[in-house]
């Protein structure tokens, strides 16, 4: 067991050396969140009115959802880049715990997701976002996001494992994650969406997570008026979604990795 932890820690450390060498690779969890937060609050916020509070109060949970969802592509790209290099062959001739490559990757991305969360929240406070709940409740809101983010990174690991190279991983990730992030209650209330999109949005895990965070932050949550079950029980729904993603995609990623690295 200790050996497994060491393997995971060493490989996670390797990913961080990579990040340290090219800090710009972190732009999607540092610069992009700041940029998106400013753009959405000042550009969109000017035209959207939210019942029961300011657009900033409404938007921050949504921006967390948007940034964490789209930056999950990084898992797919990073894993795919590793698979294309000779390093994987070297690792495979070492007596290590096989899934440690995947676990190390997912932990790296959990930590960068935490960084992303800090940047969005920090920028949010600067533009007027104010949570209206106890500290514990606000922290629980962040935790809901990170749990979801961790589940999603295993989905992205699978995308990386089925992609030929980092470019196609990026493309595939974009096609799946952008609709996931946008067809949701994250950036605009869903009430005026066409019926089909509205139904999808109400059952989208991103909506559940966003609604849960809005509740936990004490921010306006227009979705509370929607009768769909996940919108009525957003915290339960988002934890369930995250667990389902983990239970389905972590073993799948392990199997895909095994297949991809066996010849």
């Amino acid at each position, binding site marked *: 067991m200790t050996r497994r932890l*060491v393997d995971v820690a060493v490989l996670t450390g*390797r990913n961080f050396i990579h990040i340290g*060498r*090219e800090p710009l690779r972190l732009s999607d969890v540092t610069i992009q969140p700041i940029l998106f937060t400013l753009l959405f609050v000042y550009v969109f916020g000017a035209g959207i009115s939210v019942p029961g509070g300011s657009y900033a109060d409404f938007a921050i949970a949504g921006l967390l959802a948007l940034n964490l969802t789209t930056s999950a592509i990084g898992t797919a790209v990073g894993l795919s880049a590793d698979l294309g290099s000779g390093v994987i062959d070297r690792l*495979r*001739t070492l007596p290590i715990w096989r899934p440690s490559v995947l676990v190390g990757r997912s932990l790296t991305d959990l930590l960068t997701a935490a960084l992303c969360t800090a940047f969005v929240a920090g920028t949010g406070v600067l533009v007027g976002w104010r949570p209206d709940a106890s500290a514990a409740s606000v922290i629980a809101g962040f935790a809901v996001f990170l749990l979801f983010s961790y589940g999603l990174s295993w989905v992205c690991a699978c995308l990386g494992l089925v992609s030929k190279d980092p470019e196609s991983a990026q493309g595939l990730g974009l096609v799946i994650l952008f609709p996931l992030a946008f067809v949701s209650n994250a950036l605009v209330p869903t009430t005026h969406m066409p019926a089909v999109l509205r139904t999808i949005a109400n059952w989208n895990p991103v909506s559940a997570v966003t609604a849960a965070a809005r509740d936990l932050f004490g921010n306006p949550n227009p979705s509370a008026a929607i009768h769909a079950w996940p919108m009525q029980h957003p915290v339960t729904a988002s934890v369930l979604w995250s667990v389902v993603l983990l239970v389905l995609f972590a073993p799948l990623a392990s199997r895909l990795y095994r297949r991809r690295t066996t*010849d």
Partner: protein
Amino acid sequence: MTPPIIEAADLAKRFGPTVAVDGISLEVPAGAVLGVLGPNGAGKTTMVRILTTLTIPDLGWARVAGHDVVRDPQSVQRSIGVTAQAATVDEVLTGRQNLVMIGRLSGLRRAAARARAVELLDEFELGDAADRVVGGYSGGMRRRLDLAAGLVTRPPVLFLDEPTTGLDPTSRLRMWTVIRGLLRDGVTVLLTTQYLDEADQLADRIVVIDHGRVIAGGTSEELKAEVGGARLQVTLSRADAAARDALSPFVSGPIRVSEDGLRLDAAVESLSGLATTVVRALDESRVTVDDVEVRRPSLDDVFFALTGHAAEEGAVPEEVAA
């Protein structure tokens, strides 16, 4: 007798329609160096990948250090060091970081992994480049680091897959020196190469493989003997038709004469005293000679005789510095 430390029987592997390995069996006794010689695409790398647990064979079995490569890969992995044909070090890490990482993943504690990295960096003359990113290393440096990476845990069995392919002649000689140094430590080595002189220089025994099969095996001397006698080469000062007649009693088979008539070349049977006799005969025919050479067939000749094609197709050494 001690059992062989690497043994393989009837290994076969196909990728789709391509048969990469087609029934290879071999044995390497502990402490020996086996050279596996073959052209590009002969199946050398696939064979090494099977023996190093990276590829699962379709048929046959193999044991390394007493462990089955398919059923007990982790035990095999604990006994082997691998230097693959493609660089397997992390380009973004420094040389030192690579070696420490491999040490840690091989079960060394942090301090031990660091100390071993320093030792290896010195041994492989990479001390000055230790803290530079591998992406900036020359081809030769990268290969040495890759070799060092395979030696972190001082494994008793080493697999070197074409360790000098793509290196310039200087880096190649340096790599040979490094490899010879390892051999003194008594490790067992399986070395693949498409360079005949490399197998000749480093290996105790050689197997020649082509199209996924072993087509010959033995010491370098035995292989050369298999092809038959020596070759006689005479270089004249001036072209002279009398030279051919003077040589004909000593040779077996036809005499090849170069276009300018200065060089004659033929197979000969016996070696003893031949050069002297030939010079005397030419002298008696008043032919002036610049050079007489009797040479044993090279492994190139061996390969040509065995396969009907040259060994080093398209394998022009080049520097791969980034």
